[in-house]
């Protein structure tokens, strides 16, 4: 009896396997929230369209946990077939030797060419020898979200209710003061008590001042120290004037803006879907927009990073499987418009320059930031989950809350990071 049941079950199981043996692709990513939903949808769509390839995706925890797992798994040859990777993490990845080269043949298999990517992203995905080690998928950055409610009647809104007239720090601070007067609890919201958010704002201001975090093997060399202190001073000043929330965690900083208590928010493009969804549901209660971070300090630039696809080193991919992996990557690139839905700017130019993307708001408004984006310094101590992020929460965040002078904070940053670099 039991035996017959077992055979029946086996027979049914066998029948459900398609006639052609499918290539099973193991996929690791670190996407949660809106990103995670969209990536899972893309994978589902891919699987539906490709009966001969099956992606099995696993989502791991973003940051140090993900990259630690990658490193140990690759070392013992148990890595995935394909994984997502931050380009800011490329120098450390190359130093650890966890990334396989993406050859020209691979790109051909994927139906891609090098010149179809933004040069900055392509460069960030290559080693110092010019060899490609990842395929860039997007460019993501921080943008300036605004709530028109607090700016009405000021010179900062044009006839169409769009943000205008902020071309230096003075303008921006004038707008902050105006919003404060109009009753904004925190005129500019960002997660002042969080490593990533504090770092991104700091690095944007610092780069706009023309600062270089690492030159050669030296951290904050020469007058870069003064520039770092200046950036911290600006952020401290926003705190002293109560223009930014005190010790805000990430979720709280988003909630401040979505609940209409902030005039501005300096946050990642990945919160665009949050805003779009709230507006669609009709629960936002105000008009909003997002523009690239204005030139506040002298140079037009913004912190940016890229998600990319990479093949782990030490893999045992057969040529057929490798080809299947490249098919996956190629398909993802060509369908990146669904990923742009999560606020990101596609790194694949045919999508980024398509009519469909140009119609996409607010992405199209801030897409120009890709041309002037500042990636993290190319160093093994930079990038997601790196000592530089630690310095943001350990030093910059307390300093902007008044626990240290800007210069003292910059000096400690220099000495701490130099210590790690040596």
């Amino acid at each position, binding site marked *: 009896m039991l035996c017959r049941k077992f055979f029946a079950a086996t027979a049914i199981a066998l029948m459900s396997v398609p006639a052609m043996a499918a290539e099973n692709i193991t996929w690791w990513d670190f996407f949660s929230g809106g990103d995670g939903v969209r990536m899972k949808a893309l994978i589902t769509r891919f699987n539906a369209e490709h009966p001969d390839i099956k992606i099995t995706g696993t989502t791991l925890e973003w940051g140090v946990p993900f990259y630690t797992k990658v490193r140990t798994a690759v070392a013992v040859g148990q890595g995935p077939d394909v994984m997502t990777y931050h380009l800011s993490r490329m120098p450390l990845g190359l130093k*650890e030797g966890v990334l396989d080269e993406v050859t020209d043949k691979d790109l051909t298999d994927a139906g891609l060419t090098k010149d179809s990517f933004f040069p900055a992203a392509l460069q960030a995905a290559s080693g110092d020898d010019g060899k490609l080690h990842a395929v860039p998928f997007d460019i993501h950055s921080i943008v300036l979200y605004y709530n028109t409610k607090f700016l009405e009647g000021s010179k900062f809104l044009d006839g169409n209710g769009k943000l205008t007239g902020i071309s230096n720090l003075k303008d921006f601070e004038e707008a902050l003061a105006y919003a404060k007067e109009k009753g904004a609890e925190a005129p500019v919201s960002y997660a002042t*008590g969080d490593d990533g958010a504090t770092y991104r704002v700091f690095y944007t201001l610092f780069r706009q001042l023309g600062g270089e975090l690492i030159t050669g093997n030296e951290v904050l060399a020469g007058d870069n120290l003064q520039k770092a202190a200046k950036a911290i001073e600006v952020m401290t000043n926003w705190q002293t004037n109560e223009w930014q929330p005190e*010790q805000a965690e990430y979720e709280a900083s988003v909630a401040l803006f979505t609940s209409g208590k902030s005039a501005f928010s300096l946050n990642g493009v990945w919160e665009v879907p949050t805003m779009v969804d709230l507006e669609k549901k009709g629960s936002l209660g105000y008009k909003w927009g997002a523009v690239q971070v204005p030139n506040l300090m002298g140079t037009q630039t913004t912190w940016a990073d890229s998600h990319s696809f990479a093949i782990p080193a030490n893999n045992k991919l057969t040529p057929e499987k490798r080809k299947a992996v490249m098919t996956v990557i190629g398909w993802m690139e060509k369908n990146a418009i669904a990923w742009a839905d999560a606020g990101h700017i596609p790194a694949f130019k045919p999508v980024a320059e398509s009519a469909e993307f140009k119609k996409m708001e607010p992405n199209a408004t801030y897409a120009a930031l890709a041309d002037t984006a500042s990636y993290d310094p190319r160093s093994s101590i930079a990038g997601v989950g790196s000592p530089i992020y*630690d310095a943001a929460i350990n*030093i910059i965040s*307390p300093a902007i809350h008044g626990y240290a002078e800007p210069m003292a904070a910059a000096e400690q940053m220099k*000495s701490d990071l130099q*210590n790690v670099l040596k």
Partner: protein
Amino acid sequence: MAMLTNRRKEMAVAASLVAPFVLTFALVFLYPAIRLVVLSFTNSPLIGAGEWVGFDNFTRLLSDKLFLTSLKNNGYFVFLTVIPTTAIALCIALMINRLRGSLQALALAIFFLPYILPVSVVTQIWTWMLDFQFGVLQPVIAFFFGKSVAVFKNPYWVMPTVAMVTIWWTNGFNVLLFIAGLRNIPKDYYEAAQLDGATRTQLFRRVTWPLLWPVTALVLTLQMILQLKIFDQIYLLTKGGPFNSSYVMLLMVYREAFQLNHGGYASAIALVLFIVIAAFSVLQYQLLRAGGRR
């Protein structure tokens, strides 16, 4: 001759009985420990081989500012927790000991409850209670200090707060040890002393305290070892900040090994931490025992 075979047989039986333990111990403790020592003399990454660099890691350690900060913070944390938690546990145990029956069981359960919680739950509870914006304890802090304090972001508050959370979490176990110790003191001694007209204070100083001393010494030593190994609460609550004011040795081991891929250097720090703990606990236990004999 017969005796000799008997002895040999006994040895064989004994060996076969201890073998499972010895083998497991050698495999999961001894071998990794030896590897750690070897690793600390190399520049190897977390996984894979490295080159022999002699004492380089250790000399580098001595000039590493962060290491000295961590060492200092470890010391500060031990100072903030070991004696306070022992004293508090003793007081609670003395009070519970005066209760009887189910009331005593209930009181003991209440004090023991936090100890059964996993560390992540403990830190969640306290992050929520002490949250800067909406924590339920912030009005209390505001009442005493005039304004709310972001306790885990303030360089002066951070260590005492982590110490407080740790004491709250682990105190139950110490209470249990003290209760066991108190129950071991024969009632006769108290009766005899009372007949001689001893006061309550004298009972404690002349009977309870000296007879409880072995337990007190044990609790102090266990706490010392445990608190030198602080990591979880720091990692979950403060990540070592602000300004490294809660950076401790194990966090440094974690960062060096898992974030920076410096297996050799991380092993050297771990080895130093091991030596510090071993030296201090042996020293402390000997001192306390000597103190108890007097």
